[in-house]
């Protein structure tokens, strides 16, 4: 029994259901923002690079493309060894935090949820602090102890919150969020204790907590790429299910969706990506809230569009924030978390005031 079989004459393409032009246009605009931000970030710095040379240099690395010209050796080294890995890492971290923020807001139906909601920040902070305070010299290791400890701490923090939430007997999102708050507070308390005991590490720990991309290199990019790709693929694949979860667990179940299972998969993916991002960049705040909400104000609330746009604009936003962080006090650097909050909050206020959604 189907409606279309019974009334074949009435079946027709959905009216105004999802204007494909608008969707494609927004995605193209997102791609343009990301490309523009990336280009600006590789051009601007203490040594200004020639835009035409940069484009020729980049095009020359593409397969099957033959390009004459490019950059002098010194500028090419700046581009390939300093600027580009930092831009790529910033893009990965920004995309991941924005995506994880949107995913958390979807599964917890809470607009204030961010990637650190379930104890990822508390766990990563403790892991990083322990590594800084007590860790051995790992300069000869292929991967430093700090990112490993932060990654492990973030994953362990969320796992503990999930286990605590489930052991409370509740399968509701509220129980889980409360468990996350409890775990985060507990881990932060231990971190503060360690910090106070080892006060010579305070500055380094504080610098890590505020976030930075100053140590970015291709090694860090390769380190987090598999996790961010896997995490992003899962969240993008689940974007339609995030829309369904918005009607609550009961209604989602009656629509054929195992709400608890989907939530677990999405939280696991978002946690993996967040942990990877935190491992190489520290605790950069605000991106996971500001980017998804700005996207929603512009493109509507459907996760089918919000998720891919968060991927693009989160990356663009982080690249620009890092550009500001490394140029505004040159040759010194501002912590990137300060920039994301300082630029993000007024920008969000402007978007909030100027955007008028159709009723």
């Amino acid at each position: 029994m189907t409606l279309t079989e019974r009334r074949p004459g009435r079946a027709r393409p959905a009216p105004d259901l999802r204007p494909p032009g608008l969707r494609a246009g927004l995605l193209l605009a997102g791609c343009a923002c990301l490309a523009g931000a990336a280009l600006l970030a590789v051009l601007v710095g203490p040594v200004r690079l020639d835009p035409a040379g940069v484009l020729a240099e980049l095009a020359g690395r593409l397969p099957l493309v033959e390009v004459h010209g490019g950059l002098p050796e010194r500028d090419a080294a700046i581009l390939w060894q300093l600027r580009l890995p930092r831009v790529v890492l910033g893009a990965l971290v920004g995309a991941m935090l924005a995506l994880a923020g949107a995913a958390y807001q979807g599964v917890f139906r809470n607009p204030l949820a961010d990637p650190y909601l379930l104890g990822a920040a508390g766990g990563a902070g403790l892991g990083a602090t322990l590594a800084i305070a007590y860790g051995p010299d790992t300069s000869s290791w292929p991967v430093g102890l700090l990112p490993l400890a932060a990654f492990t701490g973030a994953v362990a923090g969320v796992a503990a919150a999930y286990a605590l939430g489930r052991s409370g007997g509740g399968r509701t999102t509220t129980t889980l969020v409360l468990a996350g708050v409890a775990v985060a507070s507990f881990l932060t308390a231990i971190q503060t204790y360690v910090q106070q005991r080892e006060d010579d590490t305070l500055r380094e720990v504080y610098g890590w907590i505020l976030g930075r991309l100053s140590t970015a290199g291709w090694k860090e990019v390769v380190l987090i790429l598999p996790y961010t790709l896997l995490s992003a693929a899962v969240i993008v694949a689940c974007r339609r299910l995030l829309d369904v979860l918005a009607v609550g667990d009961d209604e989602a179940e009656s629509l054929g969706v195992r709400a608890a299972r989907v939530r677990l998969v999405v939280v696991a993916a978002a946690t993996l990506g967040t942990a990877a991002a935190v491992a190489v960049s520290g605790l950069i705040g605000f991106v996971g809230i500001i980017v998804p909400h700005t996207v929603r104000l512009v493109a509507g609330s459907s996760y089918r569009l919000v998720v891919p746009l968060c991927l693009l604009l989160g990356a663009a936003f982080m690249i620009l924030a890092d550009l500001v962080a490394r140029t505004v006090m040159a040759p010194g650097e501002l912590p990137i978390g300060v920039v994301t909050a300082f630029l993000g909050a007024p920008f969000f206020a402007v978007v909030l005031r100027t955007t008028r959604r159709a009723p």
Partner: protein
Amino acid sequence: MTAIELRDVSVDLDGRPVLHDLTLSVPSGARLGLIGPNGSGKTTLLRAVAGLVRHRGDIRIGGVAPAALTRRELARRIAVVPQSPVVPPGATVGDYVLMGRTPYIPYLGTERRRDLEIVASVLDQLDLATLAGRRLDSLSGGERQRAVLARALAQQAPVLLLDEPTTGLDVGHQQQVLELVDGLRAALDLTVLSAMHDLTLAGQFADELVLLDGGRVAAAGPARSVLTERVISRHYHASVRVLEDPDGGVVVIPVRPARQAGEPAGRKVAT
């Protein structure tokens, strides 16, 4: 053929028994109205049929036990219109109705042209086509209820469960929604099981009524046999007058209980 069959179904919620050994059979294409006072178990019964709450006993949907079906397969057989549907902030009517196609779209896939065509057809049927791009939270109560109904119809399930479908609607919209459901039921050969508070409307829009009280079937049968002053007084603890309308239906009118001698009659309200 039997669309819904319950045999000795019991449900406990938080250790408290809510339904006791309920036995019920709904033929395919029938309209069954569930009535009963608050807390009598109407919503729990609907949730048990929809597989949303654990139960003891035997439930069969089209001859198949829900436990033998996946969640998606069950959603293709039963569509639910909840009493207080969650309105996702910012969702458009089109996107909301498209959620009804969820049981047909692969878990990690996306909707196909056929899904969009079916949604368009449902929107058309329920006069919602022009509202497809509107935000759900900007609609009137009647329009929103039609959107919720449209989402359920997009599931193309042969069984439709309605939990107080007229809650919060004025008398005109109550009639419109119930007439719409009735028309769709006849056109699409749906089996409709609806929990109702308004006894008159329940009698008008159901072939048979089942009165629940304390989780048990207190009375069942055609409206005329269930909606009597004695039965309503006993199970609702309400004073009502039941009148027969010229079309053969019944009208239930609440009346003030007779005042005791010497009790003040109250003041006249100035208008």
